[in-house]
């Protein structure tokens, strides 16, 4: 049986798809058979972030509607042996995902994979609820910013009411906080909520802090999950988060503002723009 992980946030643009791609890739790097599913029907983007947009033939909705077999729709990642992508369709039909259809596909995937990563769309509508419904674990992607934190709390409310685990009386999904676009410099000057502030407000376990990083845009430009940029701060932060997810005790990095000497300050620009794959 696979473990089903939903990457969710409520608010859009906080880094769900970046996180889904990085996390799924990280799990596959650790040897787990992993599939990442795009639940954002109508606005498919995971394929772009994973760099497989030109290989999409069939999609999630085709499989649900039995227009294609699961094996035909799954895209095998070119970098990692254990990694597959199930793209969303671009249909405008909002009700394309049915509970029964999603369940059937997840059950089938469960036979083959260790982890199923569900990339939720923004919002709290049907697509987002479908992505959450079957989850064993939820990773709440939050920016240190008021609207994102509030929306994350709304998502926690839905996770503890509208999920299969809860409806079956088998507990509720495990919840983890992943704080993204974090700037320790702005936290130090008092213009950004700190990791402890957000932890205190949401009161869930912290999985990791991903620093605001130029590597994220560079990675998405190229269709490479940022975790593969192993010299970048964001890539390393995702690697740590995956290790913690797998139960390892890894200290948090990128939370404290780095003390910079004058030379480092001068060379800051060039250093931040450096990218290594």
């Amino acid at each position: 049986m696979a473990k089903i992980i939903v990457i969710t946030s409520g608010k859009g643009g906080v880094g769900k798809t970046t996180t889904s791609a990085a996390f799924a890739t990280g799990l596959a790097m650790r040897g787990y058979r992993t599939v990442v599913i795009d639940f954002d029907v109508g606005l498919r983007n995971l394929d772009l972030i994973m760099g497989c947009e030109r290989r999409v033939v069939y999609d999630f909705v085709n499989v649900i509607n039995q227009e294609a077999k699961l094996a035909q729709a799954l895209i095998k990642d070119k970098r990692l042996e254990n990694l597959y992508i199930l793209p969303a369709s671009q249909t405008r039909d909002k009700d394309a995902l049915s509970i029964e259809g999603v369940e059937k596909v997840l059950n089938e995937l469960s036979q083959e994979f260790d982890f199923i990563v569900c990339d939720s769309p923004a919002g709290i509508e049907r697509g987002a609820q479908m992505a959450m419904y079957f989850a064993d674990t939820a990773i709440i992607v939050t920016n240190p910013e008021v609207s994102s934190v509030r929306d994350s709390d709304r998502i926690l409310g839905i996770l503890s009411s509208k999920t299969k685990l809860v409806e079956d009386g088998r507990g509720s999904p495990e919840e983890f906080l992943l704080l993204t676009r974090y700037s320790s410099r702005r936290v130090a000057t008092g213009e950004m909520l700190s990791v402890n502030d957000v932890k205190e407000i949401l009161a869930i376990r912290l999985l990791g802090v991903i620093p605001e990083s130029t590597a994220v845009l560079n990675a998405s430009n190229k269709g490479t999950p940022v975790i593969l940029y192993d010299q970048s701060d964001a890539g390393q932060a995702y690697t740590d988060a995956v290790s913690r997810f797998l139960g390892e005790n890894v200290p948090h990095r990128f939370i404290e503002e780095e003390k910079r000497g004058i030379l480092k300050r001068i060379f800051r620009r060039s250093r931040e723009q450096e990218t290594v794959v």
Partner: protein
Amino acid sequence: MSLLDYFRNSRKTSANVAKERLQIIVSHERSRRPQNNFNLDELQQKLIAVISDYLHIDKNKFTVELERDADRSILELNVTLPEEVQQVETV
């Protein structure tokens, strides 16, 4: 440095304001949220047991349903009493 600290502490940073506002709105929104994670089956069994002390009921004609959305829940209790015995047993 102490002078700088003095100015820093004397005015509230925008992050502090954000935290206070969030604490208020989040606790308000949480208080309106139903408390979850109770076992509906267990509730149903206990309700049947309690009602059976007072009334003869057909356990199969007893339903408890919980409807939830993000902001509220409705607990619906439906008991059909058998036609012949509707007298209340006093205990």
